[in-house]
C-alpha cells in the first residue's frame, strides 16, 4: 500500500466538505435533542471509524447523555481470523438495560456489522435501539435495517476521511473524499 505524505493528494474528489459535515451534524444533533427530550439517552459509538462523528455529534446534542464505545472485529478472511466469527473487541463499559440507545456509526454499507451489533445489544435489554449514521451507502446493502438518522446518502465509491480509513490511514482528513484507485491498487 502506497500512502502519500500529503494525504489529500490521494483523494480524487471531495465528496463532503468540512462545512457540509459540520452543518449536517448540527442538524442531526438538533433532531436527536428534540426526539429524546426527557429520556435517558446513551450514545454507543462503534470504533474506530465513528470516533470523529461521535465527538462532534455529542456536542451538538443538548441533553444529559451517556456515551459508550464498542469495537467489533472486522472480517479479514480465514488467514487472519482464527475463529472465523465476529468478535467483540471492546464491550460496553456500563449496562444499558432500560435505556434508550442510539448507535452512532460512520457508514452503513452491507449492514452486516450493524445487524450483528443490534442483535448483540438487544440482548442487554435496552428500552430502545436506534441508529444514527453519518453516511449511508445503500448500493451493496444486504441487511435492510431502518436507519433512524442519516447524514448523507453517498454513491457507490470507496470513501475515506472524517474517521473512515483505508488500511488505518486517512481517518484524520477533515472531509470525506473518494480515494484514488492508485492508492489502493498499488
Amino acid at each position: 500500500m502506497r500512502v502519500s505524505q500529503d494525504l489529500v493528494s490521494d483523494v480524487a474528489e471531495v465528496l463532503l466538505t468540512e462545512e457540509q459535515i459540520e452543518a449536517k451534524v448540527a442538524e442531526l444533533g438538533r433532531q436527536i435533542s428534540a426526539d429524546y427530550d426527557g429520556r435517558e439517552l446513551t450514545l454507543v459509538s462503534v470504533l474506530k471509524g465513528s470516533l470523529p462523528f461521535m465527538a462532534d455529534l455529542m456536542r451538538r446534542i443538548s441533553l444529559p447523555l451517556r456515551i459508550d464505545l464498542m469495537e467489533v472485529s472486522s472480517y479479514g478472511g480465514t488467514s487472519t481470523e482464527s475463529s472465523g466469527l465476529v468478535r467483540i473487541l471492546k464491550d460496553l463499559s456500563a449496562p444499558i438495560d432500560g435505556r434508550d440507545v442510539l448507535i452512532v456509526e460512520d457508514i452503513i454499507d452491507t449492514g452486516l456489522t450493524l445487524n450483528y451489533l443490534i442483535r448483540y445489544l438487544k440482548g442487554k435489554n435496552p428500552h430502545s435501539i436506534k441508529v444514527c449514521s453519518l453516511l449511508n451507502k445503500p448500493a451493496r446493502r444486504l441487511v435492510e435495517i431502518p436507519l433512524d438518522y442519516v447524514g448523507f446518502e453517498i454513491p457507490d465509491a470507496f470513501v475515506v476521511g472524517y474517521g473512515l480509513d483505508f488500511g488505518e490511514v486517512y481517518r484524520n482528513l477533515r472531509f470525506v473524499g473518494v480515494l484514488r484507485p492508485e492508492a489502493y491498487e498499488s
Partner: protein
Amino acid sequence: MDPPEQTEHLPGGVADEETPRGSHSDTVFAHASEAEFARILDFYQVAWEYEPQVFPILWDLEGNLLESFAPDFYLPDLELFVELTTLQQRLVRKKNRKVRRLRELYPGLRIKLFYARDFRALMLKYGRAALVSGLSGTLGQVTPHQDENGSTEPEDRLDALDRAGADAGDADRSEPDSNAEPHPPSERRSRGARRRAVRRAAAAAQTPAT
C-alpha cells in the same frame, strides 16, 4: 421527526441465535468468490443456504422447460436471494436477464445481484483487495466435478455454457412468449432433485425454441 417510540428493529435481518447456519466447509462451491462470500456471512453469523432452489424461468409454447435459474445464496433470516457475478462484464448480460426474468415471474421474491465491482469493493473494505484477481473472473472458477468416466455433470456444463456465454441461441433469445404458461414457483428441493431438474433443463435447452 416524531418522538421515538420503543424501537422494534426486526428487519427480518436479525438472526435468531438458534438459526442453523450454512457451513462453507461442507459445501462445494462453483466459484471461489462464492466460498469467500460464504465465509463473510459465517463471520457475521448470517444464516445462508447455497443454491437451495431452482426457479424455472423459460418455457416453450408447449410448456416444456427451457431454462432455469438457481441463485447462488438464500439468506433465510433476511428472506433474500443473492446472486454473485464476478465474471467479465460482457458475460453479465445473461445474469441480468435471468434476474430480470425471475423478478417478473416471482414478484414477491427478493434477490440482490452482486456484480464484480461490488465484490471487489467488499474485498477492498475487508482489506483483501490483493485476493480479488484470484477470486474473480475465470481465475476464480472451480474445475467442474467429473464423474468416474470423466464426463462433466450437466449442471456444470450448463454453468460452463453460461460462463462462456455460449449457450446456444441465448444471444438471440429475447423475452419468452408471453402466451407460454409459466409453471408455479418451485418448491425447495434436494440437491439431487435440483440436479435432475437442471439436467432436464439442460436437455430441453439443446432443442431450439420454436
